Each structure stands twice: as structure tokens, then as C-alpha cells.
């Protein structure tokens, strides 16, 4: 009744091809951004900001990166956590070698290092496909993680073997290090994530994105149509790793504050893959849904017994969390194998014709 495009006439091709052609969609997006930028920082408590929203946004960014590779280009990768690690270590090295330059510059630059490494490990993708490629990317995962442990230059010979984030400021406000407040960190992450999501959305809606999707749907057919596979696949690896790298740098600098190599282990890779698949392959909003589900659900499950006053031991809660998350993954896959993004689409479609059934 209220969500309907009736009467919205497009007078130019640009308006017709917009990502959000319906006015209500644009209003909804504006509302979400308003809530994210104003309401959450004003009314959110420290726990919500530091332990829920910041990780959620950072993981969403990583999921977008992986979605570009898996969802849009159809290249299965299990090495995304390692590329996040490359971003984190690159940002750390750069910020300690050149302390004068603003930290945000280095966080964004670290993405280029991750992209370089990503291209290198993406080279076999021209020959190897499917699950075989997934295992090849595992080589990247384990090799890079080994590098983070063994090459002491990467963590400045720190005896603990961990990277610790130096305190840095922007316009006089501390944004990294222990003195940064959750609100500032949240806002910094939010700005970066919003800008990069917009950028990714533009890429996948443009010529490059169409190239990727053609490669995903059938690479030989794409090749016959004049798409050069090597540049297309390597570009996908580069962009994907760039996003993962920035997300890794953000993870260490604005969320964890310090990280050991084990922060970037294979579990994180799998978590990102979960997010992408549960959220919806080849969908920007799906990456956010997936990250929200996978990150926030365990927090909720862990908090529930306490909130309800049930006397359950912490260890049992941990095991139950595993059990429930696993069951939910299967449940969601059965209900909607195309992910939460598809559910969202169906809901919108239903809303469009509401109150009529069709």
C-alpha cells in the first residue's frame, strides 16, 4: 500500500538505471544511515558500540570483499582471513615506519598490499576451478599465517609475537589505541564502511561487475564473448583482497587493539564464508545480513540464559552456542538456499502487492 512504485515516472535513463529506482527504497536507506550515524552513537552504550556494532561493520566489509570473489566471480576462496592479516600487518608496519602520516591513509593503503598478495595467490585460478581452487587458496591461508609467525620483521621483533596498535589521532581526536572512545572508533569504521560499500556497489553494477558475473555463470562462454579471463579473475582477486585487507587493518586498529597471528586463522576464513553464503551470494545487503547473523547471534545466545535468569554454566552455554549456530546454518540453508538477501527480496515483493496476495 505504501511501498509501491506507482506514479514514480522516470524521465532519464540514468534515473531508470539507478541502484534504488523506488523512492521508498531511497528513503529507507536514508533512514538507516540516519540511525547509524546519529541514533546509534547518541543512545548506544559502550557494549553495543564496541562489541557489537564495530565488529559487525568490520566483518561486513570483509564479507563484501569475499562476496566479490565468491558471489560475483564464482571463485571459491578459503584464504580471506590471511588476506585480512596481510592488511593488518601492512598497516602496522607502515604506521610504525612512517608515524607522521595519518593512520587512515595507511589503513586504506594496506588494502593495496593485500591486493598484491591476493593477485599472486589468485594466479592459479585460471587453471584450477571449484573445490580444487578452494584448497589452493588454503595454501595462501596457511603459508601467510606461517609468515606472520616466523618473520619477526613483520611484528617489529616484538617478543610477544603480537602486533600492538600505536595510539594515533585525527583532528586531535584519538581514533586508535587505548584512549580512543568507542563512539569515535564506531564513527570512523562506519564512514569507511559506508564509502567502501558505495564503491563496491558501483563496481559490481558497472561493466566490471557484469564481466565478473559472466565469468561466474560460465567462464568458457564468457571467454567466447570476448572477456579476457585472466584480467577479470585477477581483478576480482585484487578488489576482493583489497576489501579484506582494509577490513583486517580496521579489525586490528579499531576493534581488537592488538592481534596475534592466530586472530587470522582458518576459522575466520570460514566465518566470512558463512556470512557470505547465509547472507546471500552476489548481494551487497546480504553481506551485512550475514555478518549480523553470524556475529550477533552468538552474542545473543550467550546473553540469553543470564537475561532469563537460567542457571547454566558458561562452558555449557558455549557448547550450546555451537550447537544452535550449526543448527541455524542448516535451517537457513534449507529454508532459503539463496540466503537472507533472497528472503529480503521476497518480503519486499510481498509488501509491494500488500494487502493483496498477488
Amino acid at each position: 500500500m505504501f511501498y509501491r512504485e506507482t506514479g514514480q515516472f522516470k524521465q532519464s535513463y540514468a534515473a531508470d538505471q539507478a541502484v534504488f529506482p523506488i523512492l521508498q527504497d531511497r528513503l529507507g536507506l536514508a533512514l538507516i544511515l540516519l540511525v547509524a550515524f546519529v541514533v546509534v552513537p547518541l543512545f548506544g552504550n559502550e557494549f553495543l558500540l564496541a562489541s557489537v556494532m564495530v565488529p559487525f561493520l568490520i566483518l561486513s566489509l570483509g564479507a563484501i570483499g569475499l562476496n566479490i570473489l565468491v558471489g560475483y566471480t564464482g571463485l571459491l576462496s578459503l584464504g580471506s582471513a590471511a588476506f585480512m592479516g596481510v592488511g593488518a600487518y601492512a598497516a602496522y608496519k607502515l604506521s610504525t615506519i612512517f608515524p607522521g602520516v595519518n593512520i587512515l591513509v595507511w589503513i586504506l593503503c594496506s588494502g593495496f598490499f593485500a591486493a598484491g598478495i591476493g593477485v599472486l595467490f589468485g594466479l592459479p585460478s585460471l587453471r584450477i576451478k571449484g573445490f580444487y581452487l578452494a584448497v589452493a587458496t588454503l595454501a595462501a591461508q596457511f603459508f601467510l599465517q606461517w609468515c606472520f609467525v616466523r618473520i619477526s620483521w613483520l611484528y617489529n621483533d616484538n617478543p610477544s609475537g603480537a602486533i600492538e596498535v600505536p595510539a594515533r589521532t585525527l583532528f586531535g581526536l584519538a581514533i586508535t589505541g587505548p584512549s580512543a572512545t568507542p563512539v569515535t572508533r564506531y564513527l570512523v569504521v562506519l564512514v569507511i564502511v559506508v564509502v567502501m560499500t558505495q564503491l563496491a556497489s558501483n563496481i559490481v553494477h558497472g561493466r566490471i561487475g557484469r564481466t565478473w558475473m559472466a565469468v561466474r555463470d560460465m567462464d568458457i562462454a564468457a571467454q567466447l564473448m570476448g572477456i579476457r579471463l585472466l584480467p577479470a579473475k585477477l581483478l576480482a582477486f585484487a578488489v576482493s583482497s583489497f576489501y579484506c585487507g582494509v577490513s583486517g587493518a580496521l579489525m586490528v586498529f579499531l576493534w581488537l587493539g592488538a592481534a596475534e597471528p592466530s586472530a587470522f586463522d582458518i576459522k575466520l576464513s570460514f566465518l566470512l564464508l558463512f556470512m557470505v553464503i547465509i547472507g546471500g551470494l552476489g548481494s551487497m545487503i546480504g553481506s551485512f545480513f550475514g555478518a549480523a547473523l553470524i556475529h550477533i547471534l552468538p552474542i545473543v545466545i550467550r546473553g540469553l540464559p543470564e537475561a532469563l535468569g537460567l542457571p547454566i554454566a558458561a562452558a555449557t552455554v558455549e557448547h550450546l552456542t555451537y550447537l544452535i549456530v550449526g543448527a541455524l546454518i542448516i535451517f537457513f540453508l534449507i529454508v532459503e538456499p539463496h540466503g537472507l538477501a533472497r528472503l529480503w527480496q521476497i518480503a519486499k515483493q510481498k509488501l509491494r502487492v500488500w494487502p493483496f496476495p498477488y
Partner: protein
Amino acid sequence: MLYNIFIDPFVQMVQMPDLLVQTLWEGLVSGVLYALIALGFVLIFKASGVFNFAQGIMVVFSALTLVGFYEKFSAAGFSGHTAAFVALILTAGVMFVLAMLVERVVLRPLVNQPDIILFMATFGITYVLIGLGEMVFGGDPKQMIASELFLPSGSVDVEMLGGLVSFQKIDIAAAVIASAMIVGLALFFQKTRIGRALRAVADSHKAALSVGISLNQIWVIVWFAAGLVALVTGIMWGARSDVSFALEIVALKALPVLVLGGLTSVPGAIVGGLIIGIGEKLGEFYWGPLLGGGIESWFAYAIALLFLLYRPQGLFGDKIIERI
């Protein structure tokens, strides 16, 4: 530098052949165990096209169930061997129930979905099994009931090539049992009615359905077979070290084995396992120190990657034919 990489390791090999034999033997044994896990993967992949990530956790889960049952029975007053074998049978029963559940709850609703969705679903199974296993059996490492199952312990020292080479008896037993199991599976696949049905399903789901083979039944059988392989693997690994969730990481080692041999090939899983196991041990022993050690974590993947670049479908995999 070049000398250290290309010549020195070989000089060492020739100078100390006893060490070489020892390393080869260790590689062979871990290769056999990798091959066992990979075998479980291949069985399921061939019959249902599912890349079963849960194989690793099935190994842990079956081993934990076995030990858990044994503890219950020995507490109830049964003697060691009886309790162990009753527990073994009951564990096999649990694996059968698990196979039925997986087929009914996960596979049947997801039939005809893309591979990656099924792959993810097996992740869900992994999580459920981790949660369930830790809740029921606790997270502490457990002792495998090796001697109660008549598995030997101790080692045999053989003097050869100017040195002592020691063979763990349990390793020899593992190699023998694994070989027996592989032969048994091969016979089962080639000679029995069900085995033929399994091969038909592996070739083409639709064709198999059209000649009256029940896919659901075949899937239960295959998951049960993979569960039994997991149980044997669990016993063997558990006897070498403790039974704990750390074993799960071993499953990741089976992945390079798998792609090296080809996802659809049983002999491939075995040859791949041996190549990876031996290559890994040799690499760690002779080239590892040059790189600062610990290269075991990624060396297997590097070997697999190199082989894949040469043969993208693995050594024994079906040739990938692509049509427009």
C-alpha cells in the same frame, strides 16, 4: 644458499640412510592416516557430490563416542575387552543413526542445490557435532582404549643401514588395518550389489534414479560407510595421540590429499595421502630448518598446488570436460 637448498639435503640423505628410512616410514604412516580421512571424503563426494567438511569432526566424534561408551560399560562392571567391543558396536550404531539423520534432515531437503550450499550445510553439521560432542563428553582430551581393542603398543627397533630404525607397533597395525580396509572397500564397491548401485549413483544421479536405485538409501549407506571409516581413523589417530578436538585440524590436512589424488578417485586418495605424508615429513626434516621450521603447516598445500597446476583435476580425477 643454492647449495643448502638443492644439494645439501640429498647429501644428508645419502650419508645417513637410517634417518632417511625413519623419516620415510613416519611419512608413510601419517600418509596412510591422511589417506583414511581422505577416503571418507571421497566416498561421500562420489555418491552424493557433497564435499563433506564434517568428515574431520566425525573422526573426533566417533572416537569420543567410543571412549565414552567404554567408560560407561567398564564402570558397569564389564571386563576390559568385552566393554571395548560392545562399545565399538554401539558406536557403529551411533554412526548409522547419524548417517540417517544427516540424510533425513540435511541432504533430502537440500537435494539439487548448488555444491557450495551443500558444502556449507556440512559446516553446519560440523558445528552441531562440535557442540554436541563437547557438551556430552567434555572438552578434555581422552585416552584411546587401544590395548582393550587388542592394538599393540611399544616399538620394534630394526638395525639397518648402519643405524637403528624404530617402528611403532601401533603404526604398523595402522598401516595393516588401513590397507585391509581399503581392500575391503574396493571389493565392496566392485563385487556387491550395493557397491554397484553406489557406482551408478556416482556416475549419474538421474540415470541411477531411472533404473530404480533409491538415492536416499544410497546416501544413508554412504554416510554410514564414511562414518565407519571415520571410526577406524579415530581409533588409529587416537591411539597415536589423545582423542581431542585438536584432531579436527587433521581433517584440513586431508584436503590437499584429496585434491592431489582427485576428488572422485579412491586410489587417488591413497596415493595422494602417501605423497603428501612422505613429502611433508621429508620437507620438514630436510628443508624445514632452512626456513625456520614449522613448514609442515603449509607444505602439503604447496605440494598439492604444484600438482594441481600441472593437472587441474588431480592425479586420478575424472577429466573435467566443459561444454557450452
